C-alpha cells in the first residue's frame, strides 16, 4: 500500500539507481566509494522505514543488525562461504534477531520502545567489543576480501546497486500487498486494526524482523566495502544516523530512504571544509529541514508538484504524493 501511483514510485527508484550506476563512470574512486556507501545505507534505511515509517514502531536498534550482518560476513567469507550465502545468512540471522527485538514492542510503545531498543543496541555493542574470541574485540577484523569478480571499487558498487535493486523491488511488492496495508493500520490505529481481524502481534514482530533483515543485508555489504570491521561503526550513532535518513527523506514514504541516505552521505562531505564546525552546521541544516518540511524532503517535493499541477486545471487532482 503506497500513496501515489505505485508503478511510478518503483520506476522512479529504479531510475535513480540506474542514474547512480551511470554516474560512477565519470567519478573518481572516492566518489564511487561514496555512492557505494549510499547504496549500502539506503538498504538499512529502507528496513528502518518499514519498521518505523510504515508500521510505526520506533526502533533504535538498526545499527545492531547492520553490525551482526557485517560480522557474520567478515567471519564466514574467509571460510569459503560464497558472498550470496553470507548475505542470505546475514538477512536470515537478523530476521530472527529482529523477531526477538520486536517482543518489547508488544508491551511498550513510543518513547519507551525507543529506550528499550536503545538499551539493546548498547548491549549488542558491548558484546561486539568484549567478546574478542569471536569478533576480534576493539582490534576488529581486517583485510576482508571482496567477492570476485566485484573486487574493484566500481565493480563492488555494481554489486551494491544490484542488491539495492532487489531490495527495492521486494519492498515495493511487500508494501503494495495486504501486509503493507496492515503495517500502516498498525501505525495509525492498532485497536481498530485488531477489531478488523488484523493480528497486531504478528505484524508488529514481522515489521521488526523484516526491517532487521534489511539491516543485516546492509551489514553484509558494508564489511567487504570498507574491508575492515570493528565495533564503533555499529554503536548508537549509526542507529541515530539511520533514523535521521528516514526522517529527513520522509518517514513512511517509499522514496524517503533513498533521498535521506543521499543527504546523510553527501552533506557531511560538502560541509567538510568547515572542519570542526561541520557537525554543528549539519545539525542546524537538519533542524531547519525538519522545521520547513516535517514530512521530509519527499513530502516537500510532493507538495511542490501538487502546487505546480494546480496551475493546470485540465489535470485531475490526485494525491500526487510519493
Amino acid at each position: 500500500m503506497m500513496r501515489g501511483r505505485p508503478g511510478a514510485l518503483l520506476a522512479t527508484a529504479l531510475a535513480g539507481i540506474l542514474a547512480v550506476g551511470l554516474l560512477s563512470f565519470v567519478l573518481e574512486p572516492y566518489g564511487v566509494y561514496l555512492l557505494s556507501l549510499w547504496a549500502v545505507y539506503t538498504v538499512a534505511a529502507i528496513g528502518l522505514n518499514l519498521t518505523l515509517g510504515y508500521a510505526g514502531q520506533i526502533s533504535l536498534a538498526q545499527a545492531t543488525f547492520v553490525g551482526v550482518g557485517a560480522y557474520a560476513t567478515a567471519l564466514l567469507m574467509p571460510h569459503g562461504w560464497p558472498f550470496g550465502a553470507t548475505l542470505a545468512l546475514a538477512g536470515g540471522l537478523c530476521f530472527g534477531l529482529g523477531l526477538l527485538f520486536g517482543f518489547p514492542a508488544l508491551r511498550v510503545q513510543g518513547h519507551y520502545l525507543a529506550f528499550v531498543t536503545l538499551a539493546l543496541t548498547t548491549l549488542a555493542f558491548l558484546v561486539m567489543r568484549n567478546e574478542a574470541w569471536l569478533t576480534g574485540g576493539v582490534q576488529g577484523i581486517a583485510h576482508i576480501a571482496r567477492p570476485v569478480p566485484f573486487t574493484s571499487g566500481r565493480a563492488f558498487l555494481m554489486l551494491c546497486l544490484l542488491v539495492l535493486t532487489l531490495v527495492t523491488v521486494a519492498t515495493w511488492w511487500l508494501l503494495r500487498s495486504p501486509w503493507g496495508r496492515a503495517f500502516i493500520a498498525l501505525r495509525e490505529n492498532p485497536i481498530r486494526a485488531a477489531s478488523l481481524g488484523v493480528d497486531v502481534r504478528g505484524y508488529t514482530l514481522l515489521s521488526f524482523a523484516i526491517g532487521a533483515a534489511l539491516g543485516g543485508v546492509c551489514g553484509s555489504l558494508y564489511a567487504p566495502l570498507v574491508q575492515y570491521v570493528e565495533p564503533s561503526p555499529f554503536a548508537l550513532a549509526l542507529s541515530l544516523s539511520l533514523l535521521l535518513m528516514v526522517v529527513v527523506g520522509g518517514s513512511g514514504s517509499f522514496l524517503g530512504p533513498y533521498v535521506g541516505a543521499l543527504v546523510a552521505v553527501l552533506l557531511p562531505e560538502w560541509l567538510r571544509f568547515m572542519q570542526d564546525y561541520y557537525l554543528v552546521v549539519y545539525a542546524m541544516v537538519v533542524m531547519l529541514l525538519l522545521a520547513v518540511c516535517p514530512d521530509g524532503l519527499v513530502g516537500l517535493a510532493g507538495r511542490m508538484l501538487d502546487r505546480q499541477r494546480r496551475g493546470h486545471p485540465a489535470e485531475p487532482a490526485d494525491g500526487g504524493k510519493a
Partner: protein
Amino acid sequence: MTPAGPTPGTPVLEARDLHRSFGGVRAVNGISFSVAPGEILGVIGPNGSGKSTLFNCLLGQLPPSAGQVLLDGEDVTGMTPAALNRRGVSRTFQLLQVFPQLSVRENLILAGQEHVGSRLGRLFGRPDAGLTAAAERMLHLFRLEALADLLAGGLSYGQQKLLDAAMAFMAGPRLVLLDEPAGGVNLTLLGAFRERLRAMNQEAGSTFVVIEHNMDFVMSLCTRVICIAEGQIIADGSPQAVRENPQVIEAYLGH
C-alpha cells in the same frame, strides 16, 4: 467466514451476568441478555450508563470483572478482538475510527483482507486480496463511490462515519455491534443509512446490536430494544413498549 452453523434456537450472542468496574464505578453491573439470529437489537440508555463498556466486554476489548460471553453457545470470554472478528463478529467504535492515511477504498480492503486466505498467501497474492469488487459494492451501498480514492482523513465527519460502518460489513459478518452509528450523519442520509442496515440484515441474515441515542432511528430500525441505566438492564421488549416504560422515561428525565 461462517463456520459450522449453530443448532437452531441457540442465541447468536449471549451475555451472562457481566460485570465491569473502573475503580469504584460499576460501569456494567450484572447484565444478562441474548440476541436471536437475525435480530436487530437496540441498546439505549443515558450517557455514562455503561453501553459502550458493555460492548467492550462483549468484544474482548476489556476483560469483564465477572460473567461470561457466549457466541453461538460457545464461551468466548477473554478471546481477543482480532480472534472474535475472524469468527465473524465485527463492530464500530463510538469515537469514529478510520485510517486517515489510507484511501477510502484501501480502508475497506483492509477491513476485509484478514479474512481472505493465509497470511503468506496474502503476501504473494494480489495487492487487493481480491476484494476490489466487494469494496466497490460497499462504496455503492454507502454512497461513497465519488470519494473512493480520497484519503479517509480528508472526508467530512459524517462521511467518515459512513465509511466506519461500511468497514464493519466488509467481511460479511454474522454479528455486527454498532456504537452510535447515526451520530453526526445528517437527516437525509440517515433514512438511507437505516435502509442500508435493514437491507444488510435481510440479505445477509446478519444480526445487529445497535447503541443509539437517536430515538427515531432506534424505533424505526430495531426489532427489540433494551434500556440500560447505571450498568443494569431496566427494560427489555418491543421498541414501543420500552419507549413507554415509566422506568425508562424516569431514567432519561432523571439525568
